[in-house]
């Protein structure tokens, strides 16, 4: 009886969560005239016909979404690689080495994580213009190769649990810091790397503020940014906009379906124990 009620509640909430996605997907197979029919038709007119991919073909061919998807993929992948590199290194240092100012630096790293990006964006924009990085991917990618709060925190927490016998054995073998990091710590951090890569990939794929500020060349846009531009330029082309929406969600959906345990684990490990 009680389980029945819980199951029903779960179904209601699942409907509220999934229906909007489903509605977007269905409508992305509508023609422009069909999508504005009243009352709204549940079944899209193009689905199942030879023209069913028309909207997708149009946004790819006429609106360059193939190019934008590639741009997003390129930026998000590099950011993910950068974060793995820099966060595992700094996590290693914070977990295994002692030095003056360690706590201060680590706290600064964590505190700056809570600050909304809008607080730092104006001086950052100035720095980016001074470096001549406007209209390049550098301001979107380079920061990921330098600093990451969440990743550093995650690697530090994990590297503190590596058995000290292992570290001691490597010390006796004469391992120097870089060998230690590379031979002892890196080989043990596969899951952490996957998690951090996915989180970074998602955040950068979805980012909006920095692309709209730093990219003006139309060919360089990211998918997320292109969607907002498309939305304000072609207010009546909902069938195309929704197809673009599907396209922007799809890669993340695929990653999520196959690697959800890494993603869900990360939202737990982001601090419950800290």
């Amino acid at each position, binding site marked *: 009886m009680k389980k029945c009620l*819980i199951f029903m509640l779960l179904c209601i909430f699942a409907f509220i969560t999934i229906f909007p996605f489903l509605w977007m997907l269905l409508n992305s197979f509508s023609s422009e005239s069909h*999508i504005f029919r009243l*009352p709204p038709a549940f079944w899209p007119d193009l689905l199942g016909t030879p023209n069913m991919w028309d909207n997708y073909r149009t946004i790819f061919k006429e609106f360059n979404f193939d190019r934008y998807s590639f741009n997003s993929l390129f930026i998000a992948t590099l950011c993910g690689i950068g974060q793995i590199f820099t966060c595992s290194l700094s996590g290693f240092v914070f977990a295994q080495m002692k030095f003056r100012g360690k706590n201060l630096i680590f706290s600064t790293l964590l505190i700056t994580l809570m600050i909304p990006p809008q607080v730092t964006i*104006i001086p950052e924009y100035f*720095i980016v213009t001074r470096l001549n990085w406007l209209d390049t991917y550098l301001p979107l990618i380079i920061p990921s190769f330098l600093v990451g709060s969440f990743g550093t925190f995650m690697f530090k927490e994990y590297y503190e649990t590596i058995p000290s016998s292992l570290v001691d054995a490597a010390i006796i073998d004469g391992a120097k810091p870089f060998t230690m990091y590379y031979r002892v710590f890196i080989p043990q951090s596969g899951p952490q790397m996957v998690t951090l890569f996915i989180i970074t990939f998602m955040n950068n794929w979805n980012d*909006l503020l920095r692309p709209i500020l730093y990219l003006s060349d139309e060919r360089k846009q990211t998918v997320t940014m292109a969607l907002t531009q498309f939305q304000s330029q072609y207010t009546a082309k909902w069938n195309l906009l929704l197809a673009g929406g599907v396209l922007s969600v799809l890669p993340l959906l695929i990653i999520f379906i196959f690697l959800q345990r890494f993603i869900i684990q990360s939202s737990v490990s982001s601090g419950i124990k800290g």
Partner: protein
Amino acid sequence: MGKHRLAWYNSIYPWLLLLPTLIGLIVFRILPIAGSFYLSFTDWDFLRAPQFIGMDNFREAFSNPSFLQVVANTLLFSALYVTGIMIIGLFLAVLVNSKVPGVSFFRAAFYLPVVTSAVAVGIIWRWILSPNYGILNNFLQIIGINPPFWLGDKSIALFTVSFIQVWKMSGYYMIMFLAGLQDIPISVKEAALVDGANSRQLFFRITLPMLSPTTFFVLTIAIIDSFKNFELIYTMTRGGPQNATNTLVYDVYLNAFVHYRMGYSSAVSFILLLGVGLITYLNFKMKKRWVNSEY
């Protein structure tokens, strides 16, 4: 960690290995925060050199009714978001913590909007809420309700946008609450059941108090998170209608990169920073009162 280790690294190594992080921290975080603080006392259009004008930006902000509305909007959005996300997050966590068929499917489903971009979420919901062609309003008309303009009516647009942010983020908070629920030892619940507690007593007298450290942590995250609504506002309303959904993060963008008032915008961003800091500080101050620290 061993306390009496051989010296396996020269004291220069930590700094050497931390070099990328230090550069990044200074160039992309500390310098911009300091720069933003300095700029908030200047008049700057980005082309000429900044002019120092003292507290004028702050004075202007607080004497400007539309800025005060932005502050009110931000606080209302935060209050609605934090309340919504805490209640629904906990409710979903309790639901998916029970042993019913397909529970892992439900967990994944609720998490789906979290991985979706706010831009895509904004587009989906603008279509659903569209006044004439949206499925929601058409459905409401069929069942005889006269539907409002969800995003066009300035008295409800902010509520609509906060609801959508709650819809998007509930799964994230569900997972955090779920981890907390699963940390509560089963023996305690069993003992309470043996003592004759009913399920309502079990929840309010045992589960909720024992969950309080998690609740505190989740609340802290939720408050910080509640200010980060730029993408959704940008996609759904651009601060409109008539400033009704303009929040601090969007106002910073608007003043800096649409009106090119960098100094004034920095002042707004600093007010935002102080607000986030103050609320987080108060939250930690009050932690003692309600967090069950014995557990």
